[in-house]
């Protein structure tokens, strides 16, 4: 049987915990052994290996996604630097020019007393306007000749 040590004089700092520690250590020393099952280390190794493979797979997927995003970005940058109608600036200026020209047409036809139907058909922007970069910008103060 275990003989109990004298009553502990617990020191709050834990520095002078001789008597109390002897009680606790005596109890822990008397505990029956609790060895882990022999299969547990192997089971842990298998689980860790599975975790390692998952991490590799995740890293590959991440790098694949990064590479794809980088490729798409490169293509987008290359396309945007091409000259001509593929770039954003000419498209915007074409559309703006269409609207301005259609408005001038309508104003001119109305001032000449033309019918509403003709004005409407003339003021609808046409696809023919697209790409006519060389067309000179008309002076809004002068009537368009030959319309």
């Amino acid at each position, binding site marked *: 049987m275990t003989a109990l040590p004298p009553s502990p004089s617990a020191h*709050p700092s834990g520095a002078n915990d001789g008597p109390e520690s002897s009680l606790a250590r005596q109890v822990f020393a008397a505990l029956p052994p609790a060895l882990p099952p022999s299969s547990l280390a192997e089971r*842990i190794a298998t689980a860790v290996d599975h975790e390692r493979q998952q991490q590799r797979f995740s890293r590959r997927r991440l790098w694949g996604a990064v590479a794809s995003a980088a490729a798409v970005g490169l293509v987008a940058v290359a396309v945007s630097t091409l000259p001509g109608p593929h770039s954003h600036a000419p498209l915007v200026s074409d559309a703006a020019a269409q609207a301005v020209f259609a408005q001038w047409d309508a104003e001119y036809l109305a001032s000449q007393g033309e019918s509403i139907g003709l004005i409407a058909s003339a003021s609808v922007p046409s696809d023919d306007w697209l790409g006519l970069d060389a067309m000179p910008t008309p002076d809004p103060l002068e009537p368009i000749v030959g319309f």
Partner: protein
Amino acid sequence: MTPVCPPAPQAATAPAPPSTAEAALIRRAQAGDTRAFSQLVADWLPLLYPFLLRMTGDAEQAEDLCQETFIKVFRHLRGFDARRRFKPWLFRIAVNTAKSAFRARHGALVPMEEAFLDADPAAPDQTQALECRLNGELALQALMRLDIRYRQALWLRYQEELSYDEVADVMAIPLNTVRTWIRRGLDALRRELTGVLNP
């Protein structure tokens, strides 16, 4: 003349730095050496399993918690500072893993301490307990009847020889609370042993 108090012994509070071999092994494992990690498991499992077994009172659950703890160690080992002691870090992960498992099993409304107290004191490795000496059986009974907080604090302090600061860190509680729980745990342990030895 004012008496000069002798300096308090530092052994109880100042933990020893990690050994060179331990730090080297951890660095190898951090670098991805699978054999080094296996060696870490082999070195620490014999300490971790009894702790979790005595905290849970269930061998199967202790095995599950050991496995989960080492998986977390594997996941986070690169972030561990190899100049620090590995044991407190490992046991902190184990304690947190056990807490999470108990909350998941018993629900958030049941504190872990109550769940632990429901454990059957005679449940852990009954076959071993039958084969052990009588005083070992009584010691186990007395220990398992303690409040889980006191049992955990006593184990970390006196079985694992962690400093008070390290126990506070592992259990994520203030240092003064560690002192209180250890003092109360020792009182409770004494009462339990007295009751067991003098029924």
